Structures are given as structure tokens and as C-alpha cells.
């Protein structure tokens, strides 16, 4: 009886360690092995990306903490939180594409027949460089919109895009332009692949990007409680 009880404890302990080790092994191997295969240059780029994102998250946390303190005070005093909600709403609608946005940024002109993959890669690079809003020929980019087709029959969301194209992006002009025009970057790669296409990037003090005309509200997806 006593030996059976001891046995159960022993089995339980070993199984616990076993489960822990198995999970740790699987998790660490997936990430560590993939990272260990990167070159020093790639790892440096990865570290720079992670650092930039973490700094951005810390900035956001600081401003959210300030907002929380202000709201806490308002609630304790019995004041309205309308001003805070209105600010939040305006910021979120602008960020998501439901409201127009203006500010410093870049203008990219695309002359010639550039396939959709090339345009999509420019846009992806702009987002990666910290763009806050992007439009192509006046159409605000939001989730679900993808450029398709080839140079002569490009379209986005059912609207035709006729070259020359104008891509506008809001964000730090130097960072956005630098990311696109860096050695081996997307502009250099596209220029090598499509020599007939002319791409020009210029910093702008004021770029205006209008709101999307698409509905952004999910229809099939419901909030997960």
C-alpha cells in the first residue's frame, strides 16, 4: 500500500519533469535553431528591428500610462471622460484609415510598367519603415486591399491604376526615403529588374491622405470574449 503510494508520487514527479522538458525542448529548438542559422549581418538587422519595435512599444506604454492617470483622476472626481474618448477615437480612426490624415512624409512616383508585385513590395517596405498612412493614386491602403495585375492592367480593390502612379506615405521623411533607396533596397532591386521603370522618391513637408471608402467593420468575425 505504502509502496504503491510512493510509486505514484515517483511516477507523477518524473512525468512532470518529462512534460516540462518536452515543452521546453520543442519551444527552444524551434526558435533557437532558426536564429542560430542566421548570419551575423542578418542577426544584427533582426536585433535592430526588435529594438526599434520594443522602443516604440515602450513609448506607447508611457503615453497610455499618462492617459490612464488622467482618466483615473477624472473618474474619481466624477468628471466626464468624453474628451479622452474623443481623442482616442480620432487617433484610432486616423490610424485605421477611416479618417483622413495629413503630415510629413514621402512621395514616390512610378513611371513605366511596374507589375503589382513591385508596387506591393514598395508598400510593404514603407510600412516596415514606420509609415503611418499610405495611398496609391489617392486610394488609401487598408487591410484587404492588394494591388494586382501587370503594368498595363493594374488594379486595386476593383479600381484601375494607370501609370504613372503616385504613392504617398506619412511618416518620418528621411527614414521612409532612406529605407526605400538604401543600397540593395527595394528601389535598387526594382531598378535592376525593371530597367524601363523610373522610380523617384522625394521627402514632403505635408502629405494629405484621405480616408478609405471601404467598410472596415468585420461582418463574419465576432468579438472573442
Amino acid at each position: 500500500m505504502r509502496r504503491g503510494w510512493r510509486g505514484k508520487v515517483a511516477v507523477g514527479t518524473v512525468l512532470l519533469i518529462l512534460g516540462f522538458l518536452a515543452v521546453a525542448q520543442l519551444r527552444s529548438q524551434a526558435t533557437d535553431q532558426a536564429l542560430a542559422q542566421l548570419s551575423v549581418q542578418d542577426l544584427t538587422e533582426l536585433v535592430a528591428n526588435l529594438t526599434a519595435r520594443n522602443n516604440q512599444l515602450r513609448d506607447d506604454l508611457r503615453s497610455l500610462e499618462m492617459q490612464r492617470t488622467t482618466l483615473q483622476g477624472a473618474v474619481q472626481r466624477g468628471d466626464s471622460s468624453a474628451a479622452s474618448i474623443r481623442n482616442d477615437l480620432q487617433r484610432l480612426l486616423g490610424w485605421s484609415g477611416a479618417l483622413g490624415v495629413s503630415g510629413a512624409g514621402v512621395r514616390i512616383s512610378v513611371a513605366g510598367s511596374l507589375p503589382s508585385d513591385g508596387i506591393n513590395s514598395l508598400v510593404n517596405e514603407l510600412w516596415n519603415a514606420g509609415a503611418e498612412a499610405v495611398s496609391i493614386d489617392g486610394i488609401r491602403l487598408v487591410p484587404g486591399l492588394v494591388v494586382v495585375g501587370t503594368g498595363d492592367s493594374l488594379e486595386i480593390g476593383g479600381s484601375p491604376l494607370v501609370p504613372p502612379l503616385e504613392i504617398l506615405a506619412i511618416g518620418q521623411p528621411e527614414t521612409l526615403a532612406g529605407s526605400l533607396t538604401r543600397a540593395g533596397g527595394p528601389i535598387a532591386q526594382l531598378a535592376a529588374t525593371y530597367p524601363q521603370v523610373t522610380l523617384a522618391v522625394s521627402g514632403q513637408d505635408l502629405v494629405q491622405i484621405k480616408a478609405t471608402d471601404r467598410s472596415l467593420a468585420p461582418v463574419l468575425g465576432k468579438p472573442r470574449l
Partner: protein
Amino acid sequence: MNGLFARTRAIATWQVTLGVALLVLGFLIAAQVRSEGPRVRYTSQERTPLVATALDLQAQQEALKTQLLAIRAEIQGYEQQGQGGAAITGQLNDQLQAARLSSGLVALQGPGLVIQLTDSSAAVPIDGNARDYLVSGDDVLAVIRALWLSGAEGIAVNGERLVVSSAIIDIGGSVLVNSAYLAPPYQVSAIGPAGMFDKLVREPGFVDFVKARAQTFGIGVSYATPASVDLPAYAGSVTLRYGKSAPTPEPSLAAP
């Protein structure tokens, strides 16, 4: 004879289980030790601290995202408690909640599918490039774009929700989504209409991807259609630092 049976029965219970468990434990420890070997050999002096830094930064990022989601929830709670001008506040709160939902800041669930991309198991030819046999950022992007074009209304990759500002980049064959490092396999989860998979497999971009990557290099493409697909909330920046949004119309209590 009876004694022998009794002994066999005793062995067949906890002792056998313990024995098997210890065997697996030993195997796992050996696997862990062996897996360290090639990694240490492969890792140069410069690379070791960089891998450690990347892992540390990634752990920090996870913690920051958790904090961000928690503080957003707290703020939402305070906003809903605001006392003065309750009717206007209530209306603004409804609008804000709708904006959060539309922007990807709320976790969603609904019908859809999950596409999984796995690295090729084919042997790399002597004159081949090993990276061609790994899932790349472009592969993930090709699937995402095809899903959007097939009617997806929300997408996440390995738990990273795609939002308006999401970028998918490739660093040395590793994929970053929203600047978060993701390890393979890549699961692209999408909420969308019933016929989404049929549309997807006819989408020229997806067909090209399958031909160029799955059929040529053996990149694994599989799919599942669970009863419900879960998409997490986006845990990242929604701040406009350089842009300023146009003012929102003042809410009024009049019926629209």
C-alpha cells in the same frame, strides 16, 4: 507460481510506467544535450551574443505586448465609468468600441481557414541554395495577399494580427510580422466567407506560389477548416507620430 504472477502484476503497474517515463526522460535529456552540440559549433563568437540578445529582445517584446493589452483594457474600463454627460460619453464609447473592432484591436472569432506553411523536407541538391527550401517572407506574403483577395476580413500569422500598418519582412530566411520574430511553421489564420478556400485555390497569386515554391522546392502547404478561427487582438502601436487625423464630427444625440 502464484507468487510469480503477483510479482508480474506489481511490475506491470507503477514500476513499468516509471521505467518508461525514465527512458523517455533520458532520451529527452540526451536530445537536449546533443542539440546543443551543433548549435555551439555553428555559432561563431560574434553570433552567440547576438542570438542571446535577439532572444532577450523577443522575450521583452512579449512582456511589453502583454502590458500594452492590459493597460488598454484598463483605460477602456475607465472610459466606460466616466460620469458627466453620460449620454454623449456612452455614444462616444460605442463609436470607440466599433473603431477598435474595425482596427484589429479586439480579438475575433468566426468561420474561416488556416493555411500552414512548413519548410521543405527535400534534400538540398549540392548546387542548390538551402534558403530556397525554407519558408520565406515572400511565401507568407503571397498567401496573405491571396487570402485578402479571396474575401478574408481578418488575418493573423502565428498569433500576430495583421492590421493596416503590418509589414512582413524576411531577414536571412526568417520571417518578421509586425517586427515580431516568428519561428516556423507558419500558420496563417483567416476569418472569411464559406467559399474562401475555393476562391483561394483559383487565385492566380496562390497558384503561382504553389507552382514556384511547393511543387519546385517542396515547401509544405496544408490547410484546415476548423469550426471557428480565432484571431488575437493586435498588440502594437496605434500612435500617429507624424500624421494628424482630420477632426471627427461632434457626436449628437439626434437620430442619424
